[in-house]
């Protein structure tokens, strides 16, 4: 309890991290209440498929009926944004969670066993890190076929190395500590030492990096959707919605902002979501990193 109290005390001193909490909290609320805020039309097979109101290729500006307007092919933008919040959380949490687990296993094994296991695993890490930007992720989705799940797998596949490096470094220092020697003297197995003694003691920096990378992972996944590699058109996913807007940024002739809503609304949502995680991550790092204390 005192830990929570302490964290709350720290948060109160940082207005920006409170803002982060507020943003993520609001998105969470929208995600949980999605069926109430934007009820799924009766008879729809999948709640994540955005209802379509006609097939006209031109987007329609916000109106009473569609408060965020519609995109091309008349997908209701409000519905897409609300249910897209759930998609955003799912992508962020699953990808970061899985990348963290892969990183913990690979980095943990490399640091714990050392020798040639370390050498092989770390060279593999270097190789994945050497890929430019999101190119490897694009290749993976291109060969497996465009879909939201494949986007998630591919982002996982390129984002575990930073965790692996971090964990390896920590494990190297923790495994020399007395309690590990004690556990070994008591006859504990390798797995028990690694999972019960070493990893729990090197998890904090990993959690900080995880909260800091939540935002960039959302950006990467959205970028892949933007390139047309993500969910199919009509699926409630912000990146997909913004890729639908690409043809409309120049507006209509004589009115460059005619279809502003197709870019601005999903763009703003992605931005705020990422900003929220980054502010939270900053706070987590400040609180957990004693070097920064005044």
């Amino acid at each position, binding site marked *: 309890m005192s830990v929570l109290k302490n964290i709350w005390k720290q948060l109160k001193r940082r207005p920006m991290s409170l803002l982060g909490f507020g943003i993520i909290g609001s998105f969470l609320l929208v995600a949980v209440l999605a069926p109430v805020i934007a009820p799924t039309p009766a008879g729809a097979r999948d709640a994540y498929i955005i209802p379509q109101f006609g097939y006209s290729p031109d987007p329609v500006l916000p109106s009473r009926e569609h408060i965020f307007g519609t995109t091309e092919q008349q997908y209701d933008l409000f519905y897409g944004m609300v249910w897209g919040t759930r998609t955003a959380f799912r992508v962020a949490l699953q990808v970061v969670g899985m990348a963290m687990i892969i990183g913990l296993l690979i980095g943990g094994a490399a640091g714990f066993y050392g020798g040639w296991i370390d050498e092989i695993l770390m*060279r593999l890490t270097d190789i994945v890190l050497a890929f*430019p930007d999101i190119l490897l992720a694009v290749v993976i989705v291109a060969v497996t076929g465009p879909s939201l799940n494949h986007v998630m797998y591919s982002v996982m596949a390129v984002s575990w190395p930073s965790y692996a490096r971090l964990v390896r470094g920590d494990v190297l220092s923790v495994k020399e500590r007395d309690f590990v020697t004690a556990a070994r003297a008591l006859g504990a197995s390798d797995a028990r030492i690694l999972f019960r003694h070493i990893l729990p003691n090197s998890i904090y920096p990993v959690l900080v990096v995880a909260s800091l990378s939540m935002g960039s992972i959302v950006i990467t996944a959205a970028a892949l959707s933007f*390139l047309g590699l993500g969910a199919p058109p009509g699926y409630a996913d912000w990146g997909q919605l913004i890729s639908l807007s690409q043809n409309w940024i120049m507006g209509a002739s004589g009115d460059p902002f005619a279809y502003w809503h197709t870019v601005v609304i999903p763009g703003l949502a992605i*931005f705020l979501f990422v900003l929220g995680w980054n502010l939270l991550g900053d706070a987590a790092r400040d609180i957990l990193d004693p070097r920064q204390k005044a």
Partner: protein
Amino acid sequence: MLKFILKRLALLPLVLFGVTALLFSCLQFLSPEMRAALYVKDPRQLSQLDAVIEKYGLRKPLPVQYGIWLKQVAHGDLGYSETAKMPVADAIRSFFPATFELTVVTFLPIMVVGVFFGVLSAVYRDKLLDHITRFVAITGYSLPSFVLGLGLLMVFYGRLHLFPPGRYTLDTDMLVHADSFRHWTGLLTLDCLLNGQWHAAADVAEHMVLPAATLLYISVALLLRITRSSMLEELTKDYVRTARAKGLPERAIIRKHALANALIPVVTLSSLLFIGLLGGVVITETVFDFPGIGRWGVQAAQQLDIPGVLGSTMLAAFLFVIANLVSDVLYAVVDPRIRVGD
């Protein structure tokens, strides 16, 4: 030091080998027929897929196929890139200078703005200026480049008819491809100036404004953050207290004492940042239709232009290894306490 550099350079072939082998393994997700279809240019050829598979050895085991490719590369043949419509080596020669130019134009402002505001932010810690600076930086860090890019295009190009996407206008295109145009440096803006073509130089520069601005805004946050925290750490050190105790003016303490030490991690980061930009900024180049390495690489990846992907990735991986090496060496050069190679 020399031994250290040579040892690290020896890793280079290993990384290139690993990167290309990994790409090759990814491609095994596709059936031989699908990979053969990538070589087909005319629908009528589809009936002869088996011949294509035979010709390129696509049914052979993975190491054999990789070996065939390695042998080609050893003969200096990187293959033909379908997306670039030219051989891979030519594509690199054509796209890399554009990315290089954009990098050069972007890098300096990032450094100046990042370091300047990072120091200010540290000196005025927890004051209004610090909060504003940090907030602006973190918003930039949180903006996806395609959102910022599309927004900028909408306002500047759509509304104000300024800063069009692409590399240059049609007039400039004809000019730079004319026989009389001499390519002195490969940097197009500079070359236009050297050829006395002021309009063309302005045109090329104009096309780089929005991508450069986008990259500046989204990349400056990291540099600013490192400068700030590094500066904060230095300001608590004993030598700063000593300098204050002997009555040195605060400006001199900051500029002459603390800054010099605070910049050490900044130098390291900056070489990584430079190469990060040079390796191709995929999304920014794509949004602004800027014909650089990043846009080519991602197009090749999307269309499974295998030689194109392999070529652009090898270039980026090469730069990555060099950048890490340079950053380690720089680290040792600017900080005499650190010795590499031990």
